[in-house]
């Protein structure tokens, strides 16, 4: 049971990493375009990142249980 669990965990991390990369990259582009809105963009970025992270953690923990 150990190996499928670890593969699943790896898949979750790949997915979450791709999501975070997309969010971070888009936020960077947006800030570069509109530096004056960087505060708002950062807040939105952190919220979306937190939601994504919650999902990834839920998957990891439910997978272990």
């Amino acid at each position, binding site marked *: 049971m150990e190996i499928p669990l670890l593969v699943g965990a790896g898949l979750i991390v790949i997915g979450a990493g791709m999501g975070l990369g997309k969010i971070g990259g888009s936020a960077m582009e947006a800030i570069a375009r509109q530096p004056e809105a960087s505060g708002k963009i950062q*807040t939105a970025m*952190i*919220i979306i990142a*937190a*939601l994504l*992270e*919650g*999902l990834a*953690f*839920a998957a*990891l*923990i439910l997978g272990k249980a």
Partner: protein
Amino acid sequence: MHNFSIAKFILVLLVFCSLSTFAKAESDGGAVSSKSEIDAYIDHHLQDSYDYNFWSDGETGEHFGFPLPIILIDDGLKVFLSSKFHHGETVAEADGEYYKIYHGKIYKTDAEGTITLGEENHPTNSKPLDFSITKNVATMILTSILLLFMFGGLAKNYKHSKLPKGFGRVLEPLVIYVRDDIAIPNIGEKKYRNFMGFLLTVFFFIWILNLLGMTPLGVNVTGNIAVTACLALFTYVITQFSANKEYWKHIFWMPGVPVLMKIILIPIELLGTLTKPFALMIRLFANITAGHVVIMSLIALIFVGNNIYADTSISLLLALFISVIELLVAFLQAYIFTMLSALFIGLAVEEHDHAHDEHATKEII
């Protein structure tokens, strides 16, 4: 002069962090050599316990720390100190009944402390109702008292002058930050005042508990799912009870979609109200637990390799690095918990502007 003070601050930070890593390395028992021992050592750190144990002497078996009160309800109230258990090694006797700690839980036994194991190695002994002041509970009480002193002083100070004195000067910008950057943008200028008490309490409570987890006390309160579940429950109850008519209408009779769709959407929307606090709970718990596990594993590197000097230096450097990151995470998680709580409350109390299309409102979350 300015540079000098920054250098001093960084030095203090470094010493503090490395001290806490040393303390953690020592806190839970002597030499750790094999994989299973390291696992047991990390597990032990993550769990709640009935006493504060700062470190133990592996050779003599001595423990250094202090006991906490045990409160059991089992044919009447039974209160005694956890030192009676001798760190789970002996049976404790209270009013003619015998209790023993088995895998971190208290069971009722006979005078010899026999634990009978049933199927799947679960004990069949009866369990008393356990209201003990455990390590986590004691730490939370400590934090509450700390908050009371910090903010009681600040509040008293405002009666005399508009400028805070002493430690209040550190707190005032944080309070204003929570108000201006978390509460007002999410809940709105009109209604934010009712929720400031909750948001500030949650923010500082989580932040201080996260920071205490980084100290040599070796506590792991916000990495306990029961604690985060309770915090998330507060957000859930406050959100549901302060919600307005629009919020319930969007759950039970979503405007602007066909009737069949409305019926399908009811259970989905109801489930949606539950997943928000569930995610809050999991997020805080998993982040803090993950941080603790990473730091403990890096410290355990010392005992894995052959060259003790090389392993120790690498391990301490990595542990220091992660510890500094964890200081950031401690703040970030408190911020995110408060921010998302404010967002959920804001969605529930939001006044819809009927002049505009009401589906333009944020309903993704």
